[in-house]
């Protein structure tokens, strides 16, 4: 692959038609990078001793993307280093080198890419490759991608390759080979009679297959596992509806305990939007839809598809304590969100108006029954279970009610008030077997006061009250910003309600940073509480730690 890339690059570099001067003037190099360093300290209160650190005082994650473009041609590489990975990142990341290498040629009608690439079909139910730095996640496909648009409104895509698995080289079918095809047609663009219609309709479909040799000594494994999906997006004036249904044939794996039931996923969303009001509703059902290019892998790697989350993603310190992780073996739920802008100069809205948003989401287990009289639910080597499509299981994985009010009081002072109720099955989602379901009430006040046109003071007050897990928490943050360069932040999370007196710990942090154009540097000292970080329903565990962290990032 590297030789082929080099050949393509060289062929473009030495094309006689391109004169040196024109070549240089038309070339562009762009990129971005991030370096995250961590220095660990022993901390008796967190139970971190020198023997646990065991000399591993430093963690380092870093990457740099370099992209070269010349007209329709572009090529790039991504260097990554985990020396060693920061605590909480998969230890298989340990190492450094060129993680991604690619070259692409794109015109108005087609595009071809060889090397490592990212792609998504529809909502990703059959295929989505992406990278998420904060999770240490990268499931890029290495191979070839072809995109063809024969006429306006039709897009055809084809992909073929193997996925990245940390630093492990593909050889001897040690993971599956993925091939996929996607077609999308925008009827308003294709048919002249619909070009001015108020009804906007897009249809799409995809088919993906993986090939992996049968290496399992106990089960008859399918060598080729395919998944198919159909989707539409319909816009009618202020309404918009979209849906996708995906189906996967038998795919026994370590994730589903080697059952042979076909998988299915369905999402449907509708929205209405007008001035000052937005309403959004979504329904989702997933049944045995983990789809990896290695059936033996259970970690966050080698996912061919992506099951989009339906729960509101919280970013405030305490609100993010119980994040939801998508349950690929089965979940069913819905979300309703209403955003309303109280008009300016009204009695409630005042001079500047007021934003009100309400978000309710719930995710249950799917209803299951035994596949036959002689097998139990989920028994390996069977069809796994039977399940009614629209029937909710009794087990609630997550329930979230969020009410938010944004209010600007005057030119200098604005505030956000937030109340959140969460019901969280910590045993299922975080693997804390035997622990009761967490019922938490969370309140947040976020206020910003502009001292001058460039200087601002922002502070947060947060409280989380629960009888379960680690009990009650309080948190405060104060941040002083001098735009556009400097910021300094001090924060503390205090677990004052912990039933163990020695675990009533302050998780204090202090950080400051400097930004210059696209470059940013931030230094933080303090404690990191144990927990889970989730992005898009994909999560990683974060252990408690104490020490310094340094982040340098930028783009050019």
């Amino acid at each position, binding site marked *: 692959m590297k030789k082929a890339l080099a050949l393509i690059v060289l062929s473009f570099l030495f094309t006689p038609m391109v004169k040196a001067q024109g070549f240089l003037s038309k070339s562009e190099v762009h990129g971005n990078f991030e370096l995250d360093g961590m220095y660990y300290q022993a901390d008796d209160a967190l139970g971190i001793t020198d023997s646990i650190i065991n000399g591993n005082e430093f963690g380092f994650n870093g990457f740099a993307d370099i992209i070269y473009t010349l007209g329709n041609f572009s090529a790039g590489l991504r260097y990554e280093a985990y020396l060693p990975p920061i605590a909480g990142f998969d*230890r298989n990341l340990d190492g450094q080198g060129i993680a991604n290498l690619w070259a692409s040629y794109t015109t108005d009608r087609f595009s071809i890419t060889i090397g490592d690439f990212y792609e998504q079909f529809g909502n990703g139910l059959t295929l989505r490759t992406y990278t998420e730095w904060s999770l240490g996640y990268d499931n890029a496909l290495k191979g070839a991608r072809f995109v063809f648009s024969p006429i306006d409104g039709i897009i055809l895509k084809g992909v073929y390759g193997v996925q990245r698995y940390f630093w492990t080289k593909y050889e001897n079918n040690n993971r599956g080979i993925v091939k996929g095809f996607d077609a999308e047609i925008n009827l308003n663009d294709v048919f002249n009679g619909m070009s001015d219609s108020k009804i906007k309709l897009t249809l799409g479909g995809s088919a993906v*297959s993986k090939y992996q040799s049968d290496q*399992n000594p106990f089960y008859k494994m399918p060598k080729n596992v395919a998944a*198919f999906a159909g989707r539409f997006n319909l816009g009618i004036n202020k309404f918009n509806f979209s849906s996708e249904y995906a189906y996967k044939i038998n795919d026994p794996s370590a994730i589903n305990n080697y059952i042979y039931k076909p998988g299915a996923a369905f999402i449907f969303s509708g929205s209405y939007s007008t001035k000052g009001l937005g309403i959004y509703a979504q329904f989702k059902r997933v049944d045995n839809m983990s789809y990896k290019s290695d059936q033996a892998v259970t970690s966050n790697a080698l996912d061919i598809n992506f099951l989009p989350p339906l729960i509101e993603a919280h970013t405030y310190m305490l609100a993010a304590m119980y994040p939801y992780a998508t349950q690929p073996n089965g979940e069913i739920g819905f979300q309703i969100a209403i955003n309303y802008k109280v008009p300016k100069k009204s009695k409630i809205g005042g001079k500047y108006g007021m934003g009100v948003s309400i978000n309710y989401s719930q995710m249950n287990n799917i209803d299951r029954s035994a596949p036959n009289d002689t097998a139990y639910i989920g028994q390996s080597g069977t069809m796994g279970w039977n399940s009614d499509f629209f029937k909710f299981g009794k087990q609630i994985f997550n329930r979230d009610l969020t009410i938010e009010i944004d209010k600007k009081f005057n030119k200098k002072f604005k505030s956000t008030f937030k109340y959140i109720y969460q019901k969280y099955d910590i045993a299922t989602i975080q693997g804390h077997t035997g622990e009761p379901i967490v019922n938490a009430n969370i309140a947040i006040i976020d206020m910003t006061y502009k001292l001058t046109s460039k200087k601002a003071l922002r502070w947060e007050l947060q409280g989380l009250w629960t009888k379960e897990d680690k009990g009650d928490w309080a948190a405060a943050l104060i941040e002083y910003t001098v735009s556009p360069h400097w910021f300094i932040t001090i924060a503390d999370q205090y677990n004052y309600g912990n039933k163990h007196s020695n675990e009533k710990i302050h998780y204090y942090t202090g950080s400051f940073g400097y930004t210059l154009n696209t470059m940013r540097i931030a230094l933080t000292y303090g404690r990191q509480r144990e927990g889970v970080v989730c992005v898009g329903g994909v999560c990683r565990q974060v252990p408690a730690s104490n020490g310094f962290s340094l982040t340098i990032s930028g783009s050019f």
Partner: protein
Amino acid sequence: MKIRYIILVVLIFAVSFNSCDKVDAPFIESRDYCNGNKKVLIEDYTGHGCVNCPGAAVLAQELKEIFCGRAVIIAVHAGYFAQPDFENNPVFAANFTTEAGNEWDTYFGNSAKGNPNGLIDRVRVNDSYVIYPQSWAEVADPLLMEPAEALLQLIMILMLATTPYQQI
């Protein structure tokens, strides 16, 4: 012209449908592990604070049964999850770690990669000794197909005519 593209798309989807292997029951392959003399060593790296580790221990026992007793299992308590926690939880007060287990854990890097995991006959797979439970059977299977490099047997024979018993 548009018809041509529709036919193309239909053809590609038709080819895609051929990329499926539907497996019919029975799904479990019967394999005779009782014919053979080699045993495999399963080292289960665990810790009493590790919520997913009991499942791995159960799996190891199941594998021993499936392998017709030709697996030898040892549990190695080492790493963060194996640390005793006297103050907060009496259930986790016991210290099951050993000097040898800690040394193995440091050398092979088991707990650093996240428990539960283990070693199967200390063979390397994809440049790593550490093997996660879902791959234990896959790694052990070909090893059990090999003949034992050495076979030690202890047989008691009662020789009534000479001495009370004799070891061979």
